[in-house]
């Protein structure tokens, strides 16, 4: 850059001179963002499915990211958490297609991913009282990832079921991604709260 044109990269020393975030300027941002601070609350729309696969108490959440991908996991009201039960193991080697953690989609198009339907069985959770519950996909789409961390650390389900204890990531079919709620009969957070509190009163 001898020709008098200043190399912009040389100027990248400190942030302050260009009005970067400083202690004083962050206050407003803090206030503005009190509402939804966590990525999973801000970036995802929360849906729920009750009694998935016709099984009483099989409640699951479906968090849809704004890019349409869905994170599926166990809702707090899932029967596996009721009556003081704790999950002690997750068995991924179930159903016809075998161990779901082995299915590795490849490339941008996720070639080789498994297509699942609402009642496709993803895995089983085993509780400390010996009971076993089938976990299903709850929505239709391509299975991109199973949370293999659960294999070594099933306690994530007891502690952080709605974040690190998620079950799987599913890409809804393109035709369905904008009307997922109707087509897979999902409940909004409000509807879900209503349904579950009514039941608990009864």
């Amino acid at each position, binding site marked *: 850059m001898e020709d008098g044109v200043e190399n912009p990269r040389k100027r990248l020393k400190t*942030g302050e001179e260009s009005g970067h975030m400083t202690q004083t300027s962050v206050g407003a941002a803090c206030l503005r963002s009190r509402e939804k601070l966590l990525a999973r609350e801000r970036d995802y729309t929360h849906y729920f499915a009750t009694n998935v696969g016709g099984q009483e108490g099989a409640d699951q959440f479906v968090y849809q990211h704004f890019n349409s991908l869905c994170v599926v996991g166990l809702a707090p009201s899932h029967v596996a958490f009721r009556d003081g039960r704790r999950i002690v193991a997750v068995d991924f080697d179930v159903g016809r297609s075998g161990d779901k953690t082995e299915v590795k989609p*490849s490339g941008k198009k996720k070639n080789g991913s498994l297509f699942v339907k609402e009642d496709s069985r993803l895995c089983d959770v085993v509780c400390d009282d010996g009971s076993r519950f089938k976990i299903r996909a709850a929505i239709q789409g391509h299975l991109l990832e199973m949370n293999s961390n659960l294999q070594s650390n099933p306690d994530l389900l007891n502690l952080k079921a709605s974040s*690190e204890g998620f079950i799987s990531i599913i890409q809804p079919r393109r035709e369905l991604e904008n009307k997922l709620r109707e087509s897979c009969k999902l409940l909004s957070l409000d509807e879900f709260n209503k349904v579950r509190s009514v039941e608990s009163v009864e």
Partner: protein
Amino acid sequence: MQEAAGADLEEEGGGRGGGEGGADEAMACKEEGGKGKPILSLPDDAKKLLSCMLSMTVKCCARCMLGMVKVRDPLIYALSQEEIASSIADSLDEEGRDRCMAETSALACRKGDCCVCMGLLQSDQGEISSQVKEALTTAGYDVDSPCTFMLSLSAPSSIFIRQYLYYYKALEGSGGALGVSCEQKWIELKEVYRLTYGRRIQQVLSWTIDQSSTDSCAGRVKVTMEYRHEESAGMKEVLLEGKSVKRTMRERRERGQRKGNLVEIENIIAVHNVLHGMTPAALLSKFSWPPAAISKEPELTVKVERESVYIGGCYCKYSRKVSQSPWNEAHGELQDSVQTLILKEIAPLYQPEETKFMGSGREDVDGRPVDFNFEKIQELVSNLRPVGRDYVDSIKSSGETKRKTYRALVWTSAPLPPSKLDVLNQMQELAVFQNTPIRVLHRRSLAERKRTVYRMSAERVNDRFFLLDLETEAGTYIKEFVHGDLGRTRPSVGGLLCCEADILQLDVVGVEL
């Protein structure tokens, strides 16, 4: 020499004039007496080959013959078939001339009767020129102001097979008097084509042909003369014996389309390779001679394209509301982006069919309710200039070696005592394993990537907030490094602090190349 593409009669007259006028100015050394006709002087080998070709019963046009004997003088190609025939006759000795005279009618065979080019080289030069002119005018080019362009030819593959067949037959006729030279048997068809029509096209357009292939040619207009001939396509299949007859390729995709349609294109390279590697005997046994007469000449379409132009520069983004590239329409209205803003200024100057914006670094707006975006502290847009292909490559490769510094505002779920931040400050060269973040998983492949966070320094704002300065390897997903992406990025700031953390605002402070 400006000629209007007008009535046929004018064209005819103009054609002759063009040929002779050209001879006057450029080929003075080759003129003889007052005839004003370029003289063909050939080496002995070429003369022998010519006599052999003339004695063949199957007719081939005069320009094809010139190509076969490697004549490169455009003035001769500019002549009419009859004139070329007489030039050829003049160049041969007595014996050869007698034979040639007898065959003159064969030389000037009717258009489309040539067993090699099937009429490709027999068209009227004025007609071809006006077709090119029309195509360029339709595409919106000013054909009257000087410009350079590239003239390329896409010919039916059967012509190449016919060239070989004809040449081998001619050698056969010579009774072994001529040895087969493997290296460049004749002038390539595309060159003969340019010799035949290029001169005239340049006169009609006041444009110059430039076939060089250097960086300075960026944006050059490319005129492709595309000939299609389904009738003779069978020859290629016989030659290739069914393997890789056609190659499929994706068309340029249209706006809103995910990918271009598949089209079949002629597999010319395979044809050339097979022809080159085949002995004369093997080739002649594959095809009958003479080749079947054609009922229709190849069809010509003139395609006008431009080669890619690359424009490079640096920019500086001060707004959090402007993203780098237009955000997915499905998630809210399209707002200004660096890409659209820059292209809005540049596009009218180039009127491109298609544009691509390539950033060095891919920070994109996050589309979330909290103002969330990146600032690049560089000059606004500086040093915008045309660049070469190598600049593009350097941007691509620099992606692997860059270091970036960021400043982030982080929130934690639990109040942190000031001492806790030391955990972060003490970190050096922290290896981070990131599964493709859910945020981008819909358009990136799923993989685990190892990235390095070279240095971190946290500055406490209050119990729940702190400013985090980071220096990381290019390609680190910062947001995910802070909040952990559901445990898919390990370790994460939240994990290191034993609470949940999230990022509210992020600035790019610097980029080191």
